[in-house]
């Protein structure tokens, strides 16, 4: 039975490879596409030639057509440039969110629909439930791999045209399916870092593209306690970095609590100095229609704990208890149980 035409984003990793296996088994008419987003003429870095070849080989083994789309200009415009700009503004950006917002669930989705596909599929660990015509974004079955956070900005139209075939599986199950199908990607290592940052690391990537400003580190009374090699490299809540460790003082751990974008002075303080009851957010989006105020659990990072709060107005979240402040630029994703209902970027 043909359940529709699917364009599957294939990174060359195990999750999207297994997604291809499952979709073909489920009766979809599948074509694969690997997005070339970064790497320049030499095909180095992420989206490397080896990854494209892995995706192509998997597609060939499964008998599905494979394409390569170059969305490099859009990736640069919507992901890399804003990432750099955010750092110059002392923000802590999440480029994966922006990639999903602008590339995978906009650029690719729009192209797939124009080409006559019914669905776009990816290998993200999250689930979509159809609740009487409302498409709910749910956490993936594997707690440790759940990626609903990075999909928290996707709306109903896109959710209704998206398939996430590995969301019901644990990572071990994903690998087993790929291995059983004889796919070379079955035991491939996962990518953990920001994909476009080369092996030399974030500091090297940023320092070769933006001007870094060294400056003083001061305590909450303005007393100088050290120096740093670039305010742009630090983030709120960070304990170490920029060349100088922020030492414990009077037996208490010290954290970056603020950065001054004019003087490049960085203020450190204790955990208590980081606590806040509320967070204001911008670029707010919801996965479905909601009414404010609404009781939620807020997840401030891609993985880790959530905190009880009230999403009071679109731009304001109030925590039940004081929480470590969300760094400006980070995404606050809001959940009701296992359902992700939306997100915004902390101001």
């Amino acid at each position, binding site marked *: 039975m043909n359940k529709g035409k699917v364009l599957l984003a294939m990174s060359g990793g195990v999750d999207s490879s297994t997604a291809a296996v499952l979709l073909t088994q489920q009766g979809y008419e599948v*074509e694969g*596409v*690997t997005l*070339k987003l970064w*790497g320049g*003429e030499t*095909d180095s870095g992420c*989206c490397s*030639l080896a990854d*494209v070849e892995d995706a*192509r080989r998997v597609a060939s083994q499964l008998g599905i*057509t494979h*394409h*390569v*789309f*170059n969305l*490099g200009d*859009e990736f640069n415009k919507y992901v890399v440039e804003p990432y750099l700009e955010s750092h110059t503004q002392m923000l802590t950006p999440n480029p994966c969110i922006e990639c999903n917002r602008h590339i995978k669930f906009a650029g690719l989705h*729009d*192209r797939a*629909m*124009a*080409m*006559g596909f019914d669905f776009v599929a990816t290998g993200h660990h999250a689930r979509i439930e159809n609740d009487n015509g409302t498409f709910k974004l749910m956490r993936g079955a594997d707690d440790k791999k759940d990626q609903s956070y990075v999909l928290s900005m996707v709306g109903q139209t896109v959710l209704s045209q998206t398939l996430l075939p590995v969301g019901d599986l644990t990572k071990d199950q994903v690998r087993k399916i790929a291995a059983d199908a004889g796919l070379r990607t079955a035991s491939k290592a996962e990518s953990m870092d920001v994909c476009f940052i080369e092996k030399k690391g974030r500091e090297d990537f940023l320092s070769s593209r933006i001007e870094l400003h060294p400056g003083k580190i001061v305590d909450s009374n303005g007393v100088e306690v050290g120096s740093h090699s670039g305010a742009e490299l630090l983030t709120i809540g960070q304990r170490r970095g920029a060349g100088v460790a922020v030492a414990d003082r009077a037996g208490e751990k010290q954290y970056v609590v603020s950065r001054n974008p004019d003087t490049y002075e960085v203020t450190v303080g204790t955990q208590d100095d980081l606590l806040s009851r509320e967070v204001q957010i911008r670029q707010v989006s919801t996965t479905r229609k909601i009414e404010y105020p609404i009781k939620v659990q807020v997840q401030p990072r891609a993985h880790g704990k959530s905190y009880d709060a009230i999403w009071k107005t679109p731009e304001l979240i109030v925590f039940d208890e004081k929480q470590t402040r969300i760094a400006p630029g980070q995404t606050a994703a809001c959940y009701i149980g296992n359902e992700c209902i939306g997100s915004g970027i902390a101001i």
Partner: protein
Amino acid sequence: MLEDSRENFAINLGVSPDNIVFTSGATESLNIVIQGYGRAHPNATIFHSAIEHPAVMKPAKYFSEHGHNVVSLEVDANGVLKFEQLDMVQPGDLVCVMPVNNEIGVINDVIKISEFVHERGALLLTDCVQSFYSFDPKVLSEISDFAVFSSHKLGGPQGVGLLVIKNRKIIHPLSFGGSQEWELRPGTTPAFLISAFSFVFNKALQQRAESIAHLEKCQQSCIDELHASISDFEVNAIAVPRSPHIVSINLGNLESQMLVAMIDAKGVCVSRGSACASGASTPSPVLLALGIEKSKATSTLRLSFYPETKENDIIDGVQVIADCVSQLQTKKSVVNS
């Protein structure tokens, strides 16, 4: 078998058998000449037209990054070499020009270029891979100091090509080992591939006039069909002579990577003209060299024909293209930004 083939090529190309070097294909041949000449003559300038194949551009770029003088010769909006650019050529320099461009099919007057280059005391390398239906291979071989031919473009096996070289002593070898191919391409020679190439070359030569007439009909028929079914497109380099086996069209702002994927899924093979090693579409350097803006350089389709192509294949193929173009044109949101 090997020497029979060499003699056959020598006769067909009007040269001596010891002017023929068998290689793995055009890329290797071009590298043997450009790198070999560059190494032997570090003070010579390497000139190449701005629309050469990457197998010329990349070794030239490598040399320019390593202290050699490399000059890219500008072309006009149709891809025709700006002849006055050749005034820069000095004795002992190397000039690389493809008689027929691989992406848009534009023909350059390499006979006139050869006369000028040789008057200057310089040497001419012609990449003749796409030239079979526009120039007699014997003529190209005669006017060139180095001429490069490929097997598979004529329907022969992949992995074999040949280099005509008039004076083997003026280049340094790139590889060292055995004494095969005058020590310019050492290693065991693939006699069966070469023999097959020789056979196919002979056959193609015998049928050349007939093939050209057929391809000219194919090309005209393709353009007519395109005009009948697609409203908004241009034929690249329409104003100048082009090889009959290529039609390169520009579709305004439609992204050809989507179009090619859709057309491919319907069983019709076309190309975008330019892709990097991953297969990802890139703005064609050839079209950019013609002065075409970047957004349009990603909106190009290259259609090609063979002597075996049938009239109905063209009609059916153009219909598939037209259907896909029509589908994409209704989605204005996905045009190039």
